[in-house]
């Protein structure tokens, strides 16, 4: 029996690593990967709570999150390829047009 506390701690640690990666890194591909890592951390928390409450709704929600993640990667990498074609770079500092 794995304590829920440890599962949530692991989930929080993974989310934090993903968040720091998304904020600190400049490679757009790695930023997308960090977002995937954050989604995975949320999935882990959902699965942990689903088992602790003995309800399958959390696992159903994980399905939806995985579908959203797949869609997000497809569109994100499409944007990335189109960006690379126009700017010849995947550095986020080269595409800061909308940044204040």
């Amino acid at each position: 029996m794995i304590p829920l506390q440890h599962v949530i701690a692991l989930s929080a640690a993974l989310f934090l690593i993903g968040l720091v990666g998304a904020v600190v890194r400049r490679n757009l591909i790695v930023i997308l990967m960090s977002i995937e890592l954050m989604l995975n951390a949320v999935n882990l928390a959902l699965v942990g709570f689903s088992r602790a409450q003995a309800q399958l709704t959390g696992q159903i929600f994980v399905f939806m999150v995985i579908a959203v993640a797949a869609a997000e990667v497809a569109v994100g990498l499409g944007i990335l390829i189109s960006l690379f074609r126009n700017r010849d770079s995947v550095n986020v500092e080269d595409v800061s047009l909308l940044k204040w």
Partner: protein
Amino acid sequence: MTTSLLFFYFFAAVALISALGMVLNTRNTVAAAMCLVATMLSLAGVYLLLDAYLIAAIQVLVYAGAIVVLFVFVVMLLNLRSDAFPPSRQVLSKALAVVLGGYVMWRFLKLLPGMLPPEKPIPAGFGGYEAVAIELFTRWVLPFEVTSFLLLAAIVGAVVLAKRRLD
């Protein structure tokens, strides 16, 4: 300490180390993608230990199988050079991000033990394909169908974005 707890710590350690490897690796993007694969696979192991068998299988198929392959495909397609990223000028704000993140994590871990509800015993067959399928196709069938529209929109969007020129 039981065997499952031992396995949980092993998978958790692998997931954390490879996640750190993904974020800290600034040289090789393909290596970062491989670290992401290791994280996804060890998370699938954690799902197995948490009685989410179907989710574990889907994790391996969709994340480690499809999503990371897409990442590696794009990295190799773009043929990125390692000198494309000159040293950053905003070292201070990034260090601040790491320090603040660590502080929030520390506060969270201190608060965590008192916040969680008591755990309930799980019924037999919990998390197997039968139980999940019954739940998915009875109670949550409408969200499941809406997901197909989301995926369709994503497919069309990806094709339109990656196309060279719209006629």
